[in-house]
């Protein structure tokens, strides 16, 4: 049953490319959109909630609460990315067709990564997603996107090298790369310096992939230079799945002694603060969003650093929320870019009057990121702070709270510069974004508001998710 989610995109790609009949990009985009919707509802079917280890074809797939959340957010973000793809004029139709193929492959990769329970296969699926995202970034072959993609490739191959060496050492110690065996091995040799070095290398590799602060060099360039749909897809889900989701998986294996938690806490808070400062008066809209996503990822890492189940729970919830409202922001960014065809903030102002839907949805996204009560962001930040507080490291909780002030500042600055203020004369002819982009932003905005308002229901649903 889990295999379906990985194999269907594979078959779809093959189907699309057999060109039995003239397949123009519209049909391809339609199919991809349908698949992501299918995934959204398919995962609500009952057997996803049983922890049965499906050994069909001796695959060791398994789905528990955490992977369920990931699947759901993958579906949502890919749907948004495909909507944006459909509406973006800058990419030629041929390219759009390839974009669809690559997105489907990336989807297959991510679904696979979410199910897999073996550290080497984790490496394999991470590489798949990385490869697809290199190409996605460099899709429109402009100078900027090529350079960004090349940088991303170099830095993440360094990360891969590190991860692989860690896998090798763990494999040597544990005899096999399965999670359970590695966990057993960890209990005995946990303190052995070689194993510690291996786990550090693994963590650093994942930090690089996830874009945590000192290792984030590639992220701002990759997000700001890539074409619109890629940046939605990349920012929404790719970095989080490859970087942060794998951290949660390892959380169960490595016995998180205090120094490991300290690493998480320190680097999380570091990325929150410095990224927020970096984002403050950024001129490029997407680059500002890139910095803000680094700081939100910092929050998630901080939550995992608390070391308690509540921490993981809060981290996952924030991951879900963040992927929703970050992709919403990037959708709005692409809407703006498609209409004003520039990302420079200083020559954008007063667009609220011309583009009401985009501005209202982005306001809601801003508020949710900053953590204003009724919206989803608030609840997840609250949970994170509580987790930190109860787990004893109170000073980090305080730091998390204070940093949200920074988030508020740069969002308010952004809000004022772009959407309010008096309209520039050359913009008074522009129309609202195309239908599909509006559809995507309304859809994501609805999710944020709903999770925010019906938080109790979602809370015990997630508790149920985490129970098995």
């Amino acid at each position: 049953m889990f295999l379906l989610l990985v194999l269907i995109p594979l078959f779809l790609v093959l189907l699309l490319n057999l060109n039995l009949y003239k397949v123009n990009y519209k049909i391809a985009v339609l199919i991809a959109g349908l698949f992501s919707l299918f995934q959204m509802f398919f995962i609500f079917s009952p057997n996803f909630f049983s922890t049965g280890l499906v050994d069909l074809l001796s695959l060791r797939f398994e789905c528990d609460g955490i992977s369920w959340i990931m699947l759901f957010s993958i579906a949502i973000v890919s749907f948004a990315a495909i909507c944006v793809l459909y509406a973006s004029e800058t990419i030629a139709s041929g390219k759009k067709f390839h974009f669809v193929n690559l997105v489907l492959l990336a989807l297959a990769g991510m679904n696979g990564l979410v199910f897999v329970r073996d550290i080497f296969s984790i490496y394999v699926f991470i590489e798949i997603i990385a490869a697809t995202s290199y190409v996605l970034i460099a899709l429109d072959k402009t100078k900027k996107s090529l350079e960004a993609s090349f940088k991303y490739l170099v830095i993440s191959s360094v990360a891969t090298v590190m991860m692989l060496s860690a896998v090798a050492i763990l494999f040597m110690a544990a005899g096999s790369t399965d999670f359970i065996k590695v966990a057993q091995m960890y209990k005995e040799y946990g303190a052995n310096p070689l194993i510690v070095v291996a786990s550090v290398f693994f963590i650093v590799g994942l930090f690089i992939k996830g874009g945590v602060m000192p290792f984030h060099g590639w992220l701002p360039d990759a997000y700001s230079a890539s074409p619109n749909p890629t940046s939605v897809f990349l920012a929404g889900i790719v970095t989080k799945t490859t970087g942060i989701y794998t951290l949660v998986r390892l959380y169960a294996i490595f016995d998180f002694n205090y120094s490991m938690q300290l690493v998480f806490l320190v680097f999380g808070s570091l990325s929150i603060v410095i990224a927020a400062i970096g984002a403050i008066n950024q001129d490029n809209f997407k680059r500002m969003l890139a910095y803000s996503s680094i700081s939100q990822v910092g929050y998630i890492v901080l939550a995992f650093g608390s070391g308690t189940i509540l921490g993981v729970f809060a981290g996952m919830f924030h991951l879900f929320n963040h992927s929703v409202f970050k992709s919403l922001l990037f959708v709005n960014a692409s809407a703006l870019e498609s209409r004003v065809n520039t990302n420079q903030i200083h020559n954008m102002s007063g667009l609220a009057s011309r583009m009401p839907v985009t501005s209202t949805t982005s306001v809601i996204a801003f508020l949710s990121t900053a953590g204003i009560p009724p919206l989803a962001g608030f609840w997840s930040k609250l949970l994170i702070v509580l987790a930190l507080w109860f787990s004893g490291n109170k000073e980090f909780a305080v730091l998390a709270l204070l940093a949200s002030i920074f988030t508020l500042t740069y969002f308010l600055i952004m809000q004022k510069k772009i959407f309010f203020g008096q309209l520039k004369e050359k913009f008074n002819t522009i129309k609202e974004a195309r239908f599909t982009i509006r559809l995507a932003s309304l859809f994501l905005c609805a999710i944020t508001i709903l999770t925010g308002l019906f938080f109790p229901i979602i809370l015990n649903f997630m508790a149920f998710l985490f129970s098995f």
Partner: protein
Amino acid sequence: MENLYIHIFLLALIVIISVFAVSHYRIIRGAILLGAVSFLVSISLFMLKAPIAAMFELSVCTGLITVIFISVISLTNPVYAGQKKINEMSMVKKIIILFLIVAVCGFFIYLFDEKNINWIPVMNDAQKTVTTKDSLWNLRHVDLIGQALILLTGIFAVVVLFKKGKEEK
């Protein structure tokens, strides 16, 4: 265990040639040296009782990757003699620095050894012998899917990156 010395000799050779490969001022020379390094690696793989992997390494790494490298280099620009002098200087500088680093690293490992902290986990003996063949095919199905996916991405990458789009023609 007479091949102990061979192992060590091979490893030393790998390190030296990779230093030269990296710091060589003429890129083509570097690529060729890289091929040599991969050749040496495949030999040491044979020594480590991983024959199929060694064969794979030999054919793919030494062969395909070196070919790709040389094609990319020649495709882009003929070597212009202009900066020969400066490159040589930088090459010598790099070599010295690299050897320095290698020496430091060796000393560091030696230091670890001295303190004989037990940093080598006690290995459990081999559970069961399983041949590479069935390990590849029936034990690691997941990776098969993975390989399929990565190959498809490779295909599309080549299509996207190398095929000239309409606007370029």
